[in-house]
C-alpha cells in the first residue's frame, strides 16, 4: 500500500496514510484496497463490540456486505447505547444554506477546532463522507428538522461560522442511533447479525499477535463466554467516566479498550478530554452524573456573570450594565459560539475570580431573555423546548423566566486507541471506531462532530478497510478451544473472583468518587506539572487501596451490577494514571489540554508546534512498569498552523 513520504523511521507503527493530494487520498485508497469476494465474505466472522453510532452502523453495513457479525452491547438493548443522548446535531458540508460551505471548510474548521493535533488525511476523509451520512440517515427515515418547503433545516454550532448542523429537535443522537439500530435489527432479522445484549467484553484474545476473539460475561447469568472471529471491532465509546461525574451514561466505561491496551493496542492522547461548557451545575455530593444542555443553546442564549465579585442579587434584578457578557466581550467575532474548550475555560476563569453564580458559585448564566424578546417564546420553545423542560425537571427553575445556570462538565474523550488510517489498532485484526479511537478530533472536538465521526467510521470507512485487512491477512480458521482463549478466560475470571473476595470496608463508589475528584482537580480544565505529579501518586495509592479494601457484593454467577461496576472502576484506576502521565508529558497547551505553564499573555492556550506537534502513543509494558511513549509526528501539508483565534 502506498504511504506518504513523511519520515516514519522514528515511529514504531505505520499510520498508512495514502499518498497523493489531500482531496484524493481517500478515493485513491478506496480504489487500491483489496476486495473480498462476495462468496468469501460469508466465511468471515466479525465481532463488533458496542452498538452506538459506530458499532451499530458498522455491524449493519458489514452484514449487508455479507460478513457474519456478532454484535455485543452491555445495555439490555442495542438501542440504549450512549450515542442516544447526543442532543444538538450532526455536521455535514452539504452547503444547503448557500453560505459558502464546502468539504474544505468543514475539514479546515475541524482541524483548527482540534487545535492542529489531528491528522489531515483522516479529518479530510471525515469531511468528505459527511454528506453521505446525511443522505444515508434520511433514507433510513431519520426525521430531521425541515423547513416549510420540505427541505432540510440547519443550525450553527460552536467553532463554525456556517450553518451546517443537521438536527432532529434536541434528540439528534437518539434519532441517528435509532436509524443505525434499525439497520442493525434488519441484519438481525436477516440472520446475518447475532445480537448479544447485556454481554460485556472482558478481554481480547490475541493469537500470534493477531486479534482473534473476545471473552465476555453474560451480565444476566454471569456466564463467561468465548467468541472467535477474523477481526474485532471496538466501538465502545469514550472514558469520560474516569472523572466520576460526567455527561456519560453511568455504564459507559473504558474496560474493553483498556483490556485491549493491555494486550498490545497502543493508546493515543489519553489526556485529551473535552469539557463541555453548557452542563447543568453540580448541586450536591450525592450527584451521580451531569446533564448536558446542548451547545445549540448558545445560538440564542447569552452567557454572562455579574461584573461585581460576590453579587448575590437575583439575576433578573441585575441591570445590563452590571452584567459581563464575557464571551461576547473577549471574542467579538465568535461571541457565544466559541469552541467548547474556550467557553469552558472562560467559565472557569470567571468562577475562579469569584464571579460565579448559584449556591456553589460554580456556575454562569445562560440567558434567553433577549432571544425570547426578539423571536417570541414560541420560537424558542420550538427550538429548545425539550431542553428547557429537562432543565426545569432537574433544577426546579423555569428557564423561560430565570436564566439557566450552566457549568462545564466532562463530556467526550478525544483520546483513545491509536489507529492507522484504516482504523486498525497496533494489534492486527483489532479495529477501533468512533469515540473509542483517537483519530479525528485532535485536542478538541467541535460540536456536532462526534455523531459525524461515529457514523463515518461505521458506514463509510470500515466496510472498505476491513475488507482490505481480511483480503490481505487471510486469517485462518480458529476455534474457541484454542489455548489462548482458555488462558484469557482464566485471567478474566480470576480478576472477577479477586474483586469478590476482597470484602473490604469501602464501597466502589467511594473509590470512583475519590478518583474523579483527583482527575477533575488535577487532570481537568487546567493542569500543571505539580498537580499532575500529585495525581499520579494519589491514583497509585488509591489503586493499591482499592485492591485491598473495596467491598464488592453478591455472587459472580448472577446479575450483579456492582461487580460489573467494580471491574470497570478497576480499569479507570489504571487509566487515570496514564492520562496524568500523558498530560505531564505534553508541556504545551492545546485544545482541551490546558497546561498553566503554557499560556499567552491574555491567558489563552499557547501551543508549542515545534516540540509537540505529535500524537502521543503509549505502549503498555506491564502494570508495574512505565508505559513507553511513541510519537507519531503530525505533518501538515495543506493547512497553515496558526494560533487559534476566535476574537
Amino acid at each position, binding site marked *: 500500500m502506498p504511504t506518504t513520504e513523511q519520515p516514519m523511521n522514528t515511529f514504531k507503527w505505520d499510520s498508512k496514510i495514502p499518498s497523493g493530494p489531500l482531496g484524493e487520498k481517500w478515493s485513491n485508497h478506496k480504489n487500491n484496497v483489496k476486495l473480498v469476494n462476495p462468496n468469501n465474505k460469508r466465511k468471515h466472522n466479525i465481532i463488533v463490540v458496542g452498538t452506538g453510532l459506530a458499532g451499530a*452502523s458498522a455491524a*449493519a453495513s458489514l452484514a*449487508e456486505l455479507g460478513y457474519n457479525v456478532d454484535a455485543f452491547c452491555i445495555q*439490555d*438493548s442495542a*438501542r*440504549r447505547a450512549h450515542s*442516544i*443522548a447526543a442532543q444538538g446535531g450532526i455536521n455535514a458540508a*452539504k452547503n*444547503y444554506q448557500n453560505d459558502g460551505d464546502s468539504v474544505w471548510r468543514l475539514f479546515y474548521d475541524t482541524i483548527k477546532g482540534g487545535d492542529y493535533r489531528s491528522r489531515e488525511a483522516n479529518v479530510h476523509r471525515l469531511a468528505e463522507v459527511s454528506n*453521505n451520512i*446525511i*443522505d*444515508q440517515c*434520511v*433514507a*433510513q*427515515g431519520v*426525521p*430531521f*428538522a*425541515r423547513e*416549510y*418547503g*420540505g427541505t*432540510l433545516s440547519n443550525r450553527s454550532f460552536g467553532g463554525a461560522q456556517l450553518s451546517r448542523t443537521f438536527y432532529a*429537535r434536541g*434528540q439528534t443522537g*437518539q*434519532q441517528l442511533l435509532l436509524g443505525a439500530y*434499525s*439497520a442493525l*435489527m*434488519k441484519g*438481525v*432479522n436477516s440472520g446475518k447479525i447475532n445480537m448479544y*445484549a447485556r454481554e460485556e467484553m472482558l478481554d481480547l484474545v490475541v493469537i500470534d499477535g493477531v486479534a482473534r476473539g473476545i471473552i465476555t460475561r453474560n451480565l444476566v447469568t454471569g456466564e463467561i463466554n468465548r467468541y472467535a472471529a477474523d477481526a474485532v471491532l471496538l466501538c465502545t465509546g469514550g472514558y469520560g467516566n474516569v472523572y466520576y461525574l460526567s455527561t456519560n*451514561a*453511568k*455504564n459507559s466505561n473504558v474496560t474493553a479498550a483498556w483490556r485491549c491496551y493491555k494486550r498490545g493496542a497502543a493508546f493515543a492522547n489519553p489526556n485529551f478530554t473535552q469539557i463541555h461548557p453548557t452542563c447543568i451545575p453540580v448541586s*450536591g455530593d*450525592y450527584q*451521580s452524573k451531569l*446533564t448536558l444542555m446542548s451547545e445549540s443553546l448558545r445560538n440564542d442564549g447569552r452567557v454572562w456573570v455579574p461584573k461585581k465579585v460576590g453579587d448575590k442579587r437575583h439575576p433578573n434584578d441585575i441591570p445590563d450594565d452590571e452584567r459581563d457578557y464575557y464571551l461576547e466581550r473577549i471574542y467579538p467575532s465568535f461571541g457565544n459560539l466559541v469552541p467548547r474548550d474556550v467557553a469552558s475555560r472562560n467559565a472557569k476563569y470567571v468562577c475562579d475570580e469569584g464571579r460565579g453564580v448559584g*449556591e456553589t458559585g460554580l456556575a454562569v448564566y445562560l440567558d434567553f431573555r433577549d432571544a425570547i424578546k426578539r423571536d417570541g417564546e414560541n420560537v424558542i420553545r420550538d427550538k429548545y423546548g425539550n431542553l428547557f423542560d*429537562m432543565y426545569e*425537571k*432537574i433544577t*426546579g427553575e423555569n428557564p423561560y423566566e430565570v436564566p439557566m445556570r450552566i457549568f462545564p462538565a466532562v463530556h467526550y474523550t478525544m483520546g483513545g486507541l491509536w489507529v492507522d488510517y484504516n482504523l486498525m489498532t497496533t494489534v492486527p485484526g483489532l479495529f477501533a471506531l468512533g469515540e473509542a479511537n483517537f483519530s479525528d478530533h485532535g485536542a478538541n472536538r467541535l460540536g456536532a462532530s462526534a455523531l459525524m465521526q461515529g457514523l463515518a467510521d461505521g*458506514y*463509510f470507512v470500515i*466496510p472498505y478497510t476491513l475488507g482490505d485487512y481480511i483480503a490481505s491477512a487471510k486469517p485462518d480458521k480458529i476455534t474457541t478451544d484454542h489455548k489462548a482463549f482458555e488462558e484469557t478466560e482464566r485471567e478474566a475470571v480470576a480478576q472477577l473472583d479477586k474483586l469478590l473476595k476482597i470484602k473490604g470496608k469501602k*464501597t466502589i*463508589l467511594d473509590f470512583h468518587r475519590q478518583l474523579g475528584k483527583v482527575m477533575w482537580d488535577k487532570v481537568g480544565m487546567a493542569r500543571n506539572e505539580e498537580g499532575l505529579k500529585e495525581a499520579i501518586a494519589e491514583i497509585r495509592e488509591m489503586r493499591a487501596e482499592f485492591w485491598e479494601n473495596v*467491598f464488592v*457484593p*453478591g455472587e459472580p454467577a448472577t*446479575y450483579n451490577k*456492582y461487580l460489573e461496576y467494580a471491574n470497570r472502576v478497576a480499569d479507570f484506576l489504571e487509566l487515570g494514571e496514564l492520562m496524568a502521565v500523558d498530560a505531564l508529558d505534553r508541556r504545551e497547551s492545546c485544545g482541551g489540554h490546558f497546561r498553566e505553564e503554557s499560556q499567552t499573555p491574555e491567558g489563552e492556550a499557547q501551543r508549542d508546534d515545534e516540540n509537540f506537534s505529535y500524537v502521543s502513543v503509549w505502549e503498555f509494558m506491564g502494570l508495574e512498569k512505565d508505559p513507553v511513549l511513541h510519537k507519531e509526528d503530525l505533518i501538515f501539508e495543506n493547512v497553515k498552523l496558526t494560533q487559534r483565534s476566535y476574537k
Partner: protein
Amino acid sequence: MSNNETMSLTLKIWRQKNQNTKGFFEEHKMDDVNPHMSFLEMLDLLNEHLMQDQKEPIEFDHDCREGICGSCNLVINGVAHGPEMRTAACQLHMRKFNDGDTITIEPWRAEAFPMIKDLVVDRSAFDRIMSAGGYVSVGTGNAPDANAIPIPKQQADQAMDYAVCIGCGACVASCPNSSASLFTGAKISQFANLPQGEPERKRRVVAMVEQMEKEGFGDCSNYAECEAVCPVGISISAIAEMRREYMKALI
C-alpha cells in the same frame, strides 16, 4: 428548599432473586434523602448504605440518567416512572415527594417482560418487534441526496413526535392489559408519516403486529394509560394510526 434539609422516607421495594423464586417487599427506612436528589440517586444512596452493612444491594436498570436511553423501569407508587407526568424515573426528583412518605417500588410486570432480578426485567421482546419490521430496508451507500425527497415540515414534525419513543416499556407496564401497542404503533406511525416508509408499509405493520402478539403482550383496550405515563408523551393516536395502517394492509 436548601441543600441541607433532608427527608425521611420509608421504601417498600420489590426483591426477587430470579424468575423461579417468589418475590417479596423489603422495607427500608432512610432519613438522609436530599430533596434535590434524583430518584435513582436516592436508590444509589440506599445501596451504599446496604453495602456499608455488607448487604446485597437492590438491582435496578439505569444508564443515561437524562431520560433518553429508556433503561430505567420503576413502578413508583403504582405508576410507571412515578408521579410526574412526562418524566422518566431517572429525571424524577425527590422534591416531588414529602418528608415521611412511604414509597412503593415495583418492577415492570408483564409476561412478555420476564423477571431478571429485583427491579430488573428482560425487555428484549421490544427488540424482536423492531427486528420484525421497524426499519427502512436501505443498504448503506445507496441513498439519494438528502434533499431529493422534500417532506413538508408538518409531516416531518409528526413523524418526529412518534420517533421520540425511548423504548422504556412504561406503556406496557402501565397498561391494564400489558399491551405493547403504543411502542409498536409509534414506530409504525413514524414511518407511515414519511415517504421513506412507503415501500414497506404493508409488510411492516403486519410483521410487527404479528411479532407483538407472539411475544405475549395483551390487547389494547384504548385506556390511553400508556400515553399518560409515556415519558416523551407519545399520543395514543399512534395506536389509531397503527390500526389504520393495518386496515390498509388488509385491503
